[in-house]
């Protein structure tokens, strides 16, 4: 997980450069949104099992 954070800035940088170089303005925000979804899914699936333990 820590590794991912370290590489995340590199990835975002690359995504930004891509969008700029290709004049594809939608690319950066879309990839950010998708990565956020991945994050939400990861966090959600790690914490929601908690709910089971409450029952």
């Amino acid at each position, binding site marked *: 997980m820590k*590794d*991912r954070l370290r*590489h995340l800035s*590199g*990835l975002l940088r*690359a*995504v930004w450069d*891509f969008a700029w170089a*290709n004049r*594809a303005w939608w*690319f950066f925000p*879309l*990839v950010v949104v*998708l*990565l956020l*979804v*991945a994050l939400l899914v990861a966090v959600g699936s790690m914490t929601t099992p908690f709910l089971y333990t409450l029952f």
Partner: protein
Amino acid sequence: MNILGLSAFYHDSAAALVRDGEIIAAAQEERFSRKKHDADFPRGAMEYCLRAGGVGPEGPDAVIFYEKPLDKFDRLLETCFSVAPRGFRSFLVSMPLWLREKLWIPLTVEREMARAGFKLPRETLFSGHHEAHAASAFYPSPFERSAILTVDGVGEWATAAIGRGEDSQVHVMEEMRFPHSLGLLYSAFTYFCGFRVNDGEYKLMGLAPYGKPSYAGTIREKLVDLREDGSFRLNMEYFGYLDGLAMTSQKFDALFGGPPRKMDGPLTMREADLARSVQEVTEDILLRMARHASELTGEGRLCLAGGVALNCVANGRLRREGPFRDIWIQPASGDAGGALGAALAYWHMGCDGPRKAVPGDAMKGAFLGPEWTDNEIGDILRREGVSPRQVAGAEWPREVAKLVAAGRVVGLFQGRMEFGPRALGNRSIIADARVPGMRERINAAVKRRESFRPFAPAVLAEGAGEYFELEAPSPYMLLTAQVRKERLREPAGPRPASVDGMARLELSDIPAVTHVDGSARIQTVSREQNPDFHAVLAAFKEMTGCGLVLNTSFNAKDEPIVCSPVDALRCFREAGLDDLAIGPYIVSRVTAPSPAGNIGGVSS
């Protein structure tokens, strides 16, 4: 300077090591993991290549991946935008893979190298997909300059590319873009005829000669808008790979008279005719592309790579009918070769590494994988409870040839493993191609595969012309040619109407390697490229007068070609081979050889 090239995450992951421009090692991951077409990160292959190159914990000087992930991701997203709301299921399948894995390649490389005990150089590098194919086609070739044609399913956006190689520079000039792809067209028919995509294309090519090109007209009219220069558009209404999980759409079904063949379903003439039709169209497209490449570049020679370059029937036609006076084809034309190409591209164009075209080629016979010493093999055999017979060096070729001449099916394991899908004598199963019923026997009992699949001959390079209408060498089994007319035989009675019926015909005096249309997928064996295999063939010729043997890959059903002595031993037992000639040892089944070709038998 050590450069490690990697391909992964699609199919046929592989690693390759290039040192100062010289190809040191290369291997596909499937051979190590024993998972066919393994697409995971090539751990085993990577470790092998680095160790084979003597790279220590300081790691290689550079690591390069064979394609540009963001361009590919862009293509995926733009495709989604182009088909939404359809395609959600496909989106659901592919997105998690990208978000977890394919966007994080530098991280994966870092982790894997650390895990294997190597230090990662500053950062992971990336080449273009077709650039890697082009590099794998040109740099190992013997040409100082040539045209380059790469054709496959799809890379980032390009599905085919024409370029030029000159001295140490490769550049791509023109391309065709997704979704209009010759590789995907062929794969669509592969799927429709009930074979697995990225695995069964070869089978479709083998099925083609059984059929008639009765659908070619329909393909040209409804599916493909083909131009004179070989470029084309596909009618995407008939294909399902944009928005679905199947290659073809329902409209395709309607056009070709019904649903796709189920994978284990009966093979009918419809599939044979479809195979023949798409093969013919494919050959036409390639010839046009080649002519266009010739006009565009003005070069007299051609280098070929990309998955479609494995279509040896088309290659044979290109060589005979195309505008180029010489052609060189990368033996590992598929994505596995991309690992090699990426490394070579970086050396020559990223590091300004000099190039010296090697006569013949720089692939070292494609023998770039692991090897075992005689002692290691002996130890392994004994450990596995086998007491093998050891044969002195000078005697070895004759002993192996004797077995083959006795009608036995022999597993041959020696030297370095081949890189690329074909077995070229180092991890091969060989047998006498003249024996009636040999082909059926090996198809049914040893490899347990479809009866229509042909076998290929390995022939002494100097004598190839006696058997085949072949003007130039074919060292990597990438070209087909006709068996010489004098050797062909007409079968008695009318031609059977079914694929199975036709598959049983014996159509020449080397029936096991003669395909139903009189052609063969030839491997010419030269003393320089593979002295040991050449010696076996020479000994066989001396004994029998025949200078060729049947050569099929050394593996059992549904497994990749064997890599290690342990794999070989297991396959020897499972596949019911008569003998295993491994290193200086011969292991024989003491029980009698099976019905076909039972001549005396040789005891261990």
